[in-house]
């Protein structure tokens, strides 16, 4: 019997329509799906696997291999703390701790109200402004633990 998906898959179909139906499109399609839903819903992965003719196991292996993808829903605002070398030696770990203290979530976790997710990124390439935190789309350079709170309160 056909399972009725509980996720609206129309965005997935719209994304798939933009790419050739072949394996090389997989990562590009998953990027767009991730952007559309803020994560990769299981049903979306099944749809992608079927349409691209790639085994579901392979889709999962790609979805779990790359850091850009998440199988869990992410918070409305994603806080990315850069942990590149320049940020590390200028105190990135203090920033992670500050977010942890304020929001009570560790790297890779999301607050219960789905407002924030905390991620660490291995270098965003903005090293001259180290340490860097990206709150949503906003890059915060020369970030300090004590001033981080203003960005966290504001959110998106």
């Amino acid at each position, binding site marked *: 019997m056909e399972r009725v998906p509980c996720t609206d898959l129309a965005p997935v179909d719209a994304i798939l329509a933009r790419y050739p139906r072949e394996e090389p499109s997989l990562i590009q399609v998953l990027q767009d799906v991730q952007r559309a839903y803020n994560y990769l819903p299981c049903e979306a992965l099944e749809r992608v696997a079927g349409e691209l003719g*790639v085994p579901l196991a392979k889709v999962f292996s790609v979805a779990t*291999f790359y850091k850009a993808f998440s199988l869990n829903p992410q918070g409305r605002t994603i806080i990315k703390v850069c942990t590149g*070398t320049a940020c590390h*030696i200028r105190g990135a770990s203090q920033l992670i701790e500050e977010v942890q203290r304020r929001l009570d979530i560790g790297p890779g976790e999301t607050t219960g109200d789905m407002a924030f997710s905390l991620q660490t990124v291995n270098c*965003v*390439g903005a090293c001259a402004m180290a340490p860097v935190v990206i709150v949503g789309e906003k890059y915060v*350079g020369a970030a300090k633990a*004590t001033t981080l709170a203003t960005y966290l309160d504001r959110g998106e």
Partner: protein
Amino acid sequence: MRIESHQQFDAAVEAARAAKLSKGREVWVCCGTGCLANGSRAVAKAFDERIEAEGLQASLGLYHKTTGCHGFCERGPLVVIQPEGLLYTKVKVTDVPEILEKTVRNGEAIPRLQYKDPVTKQAVAKYEDIPFYKHQIRVSMRNIGRVDPEDLDDALAHGAYSGLAKALFAMTPDQVIAEIEASGLRGRGGAGFATARKWKACRKAKGERKFVLCNGDEGDPGAFKDRSIMEGDPHSVIEGMIIGAYAIGAHEGYLYVRDEYPLAVVNLGKAIEAARLRGLLGANILGSGFDFDLRISRGGGAFVCGESSALMRSIEGRTGEPRAKYVHASDKGLFDLPTNLNNVETWSDVGAIIANGGAWFAGWGTPKSKGTKAFSLVGKVKNTGLIELPMGTTLRHIIEDIGGGILKDRPFKAVQTGGPSGGCLPADQLDLPVDYEVLSENGSMMGSGGMIVMDDRTCMVDVARYFLKFLCEESCGKCVPCREGLKQMLHIFEDLCAGRGRPGDIERIERLCHAMQLGSLCELGKSAPNPVLSTLRYFRHEYEAHIQDRACPAGMCRDLTAYEIVEEPCTGCHQCTRVCPTDAISGKPKQKHVIDPAKCISCGSCFDVCPEDCIRFFPKNGSKEAANAHADH
């Protein structure tokens, strides 16, 4: 309009030069990632609106454009006023009317916005007089900060695609390769393989369908020159790739760009579209009969995809796992077809080399490393940003003259180059000339040009631990030596940093390093021990202090370090209380403050801000407990 012949190309360049270069006055606003973060888009918009509203284009002949990253991100948003080349830093929207009125209209400088040399404390008016820029020679970054990355005509006016026209109309593919050979160009992604040899192998490979690829997966932490090139001058990369494709006989190409560089994807996409419309990409390029087209492939955020075979698997839509090196990409690369992969900076050099000749490029550098090289100079130096210099420049010149020395004039400890495949070089190596061989011989690597400067407050054991953690997360897990070797080594390092080091740890680390060098499948695994081995080579005493004395000489390992405020000369200025994240410091204004050891997490924030240097760190005694706990399990 499509350009369909050599003559039409020359005419298009002439027209672009007339339209873009003959301006009287120009305002350039940097819109690279760094300046954007500091609000440069709003500044650019404010200029736009004012110029429009006051009709300054007509009255003053004033033009305004946004450019890519100048590499001086720390001081952004940057504004340059041409033709004088005046530089203003940290410009705010509210400064815009004043700049237009005083500087543009009346030719007066605004001292408040000028750059102040951190060494001489003097204001420097002009862009080219700033020590950070003065010493640079820019080839791969030749047009960054000078052209509007979204304007193909502006790029044409600044010489873009002139190398391509020369290659297509005046050179055979073999001549192109010979010119690259004469330039001595070697891979700018790190390994330094001769570019011409790579191209020759791919040209000779059998098969009709071949690929050229651009490695824009700049994953080395601390390096960002490729981002800046892709964002700020995408046409230089595209031009290089077309020339390479022509030399090799390829008609398809991919630009593989890191997921973390969204602006690079946008700017490259626009540049490709613009180039296609003008007949610089696609079928019958410039009417030469040569076909080549280019697509962008966005990475998924995996460091290992910077490795060539892993990158190709990723473009194929698969997990980025490297394969053994006996399979050459020039024979079986992307989709098992002959493939040539070069780094962003390498591609960007190609157009300039063809336009100016191989001998021109080879005029810089050392006997084995020719030309110029881009670096990102970051960490604890006064001036941070992107630089490009002739190969063979000494580390001392880079750090002291260009970087302006160490932040807060603290003692220099080491400079890390080559990312997780490189190493740390100590103070007595500062006079080494930077080239591929010299860096390798001394236990580091060129890598993708990250130079992270470290002061006496950086713990070298912690730096090695940092890279191991990075590599542990990023190892693809395909081969055992890399996957398990890193994990076991990280365990040992976490113990070292927490005061649980044991005699014999250094020897255990060395054995693991050796096994990984011998047994790992790809270069990332083979080179992964480098940060550990180089810090052991030059800073063994720090390892011994962690093990024998349970002490971190740099005061960075928190479990080993405690802080206190000394009586004199604490003035009770409150700066430390403001930055303390755990409210561990107390004291009345203008009286000596005290740190509560129960609350202190030894983060060192107070130490960094204290203007009187009255905060001291010392080895924490509590580590004995930790040592005992370790012995129990």
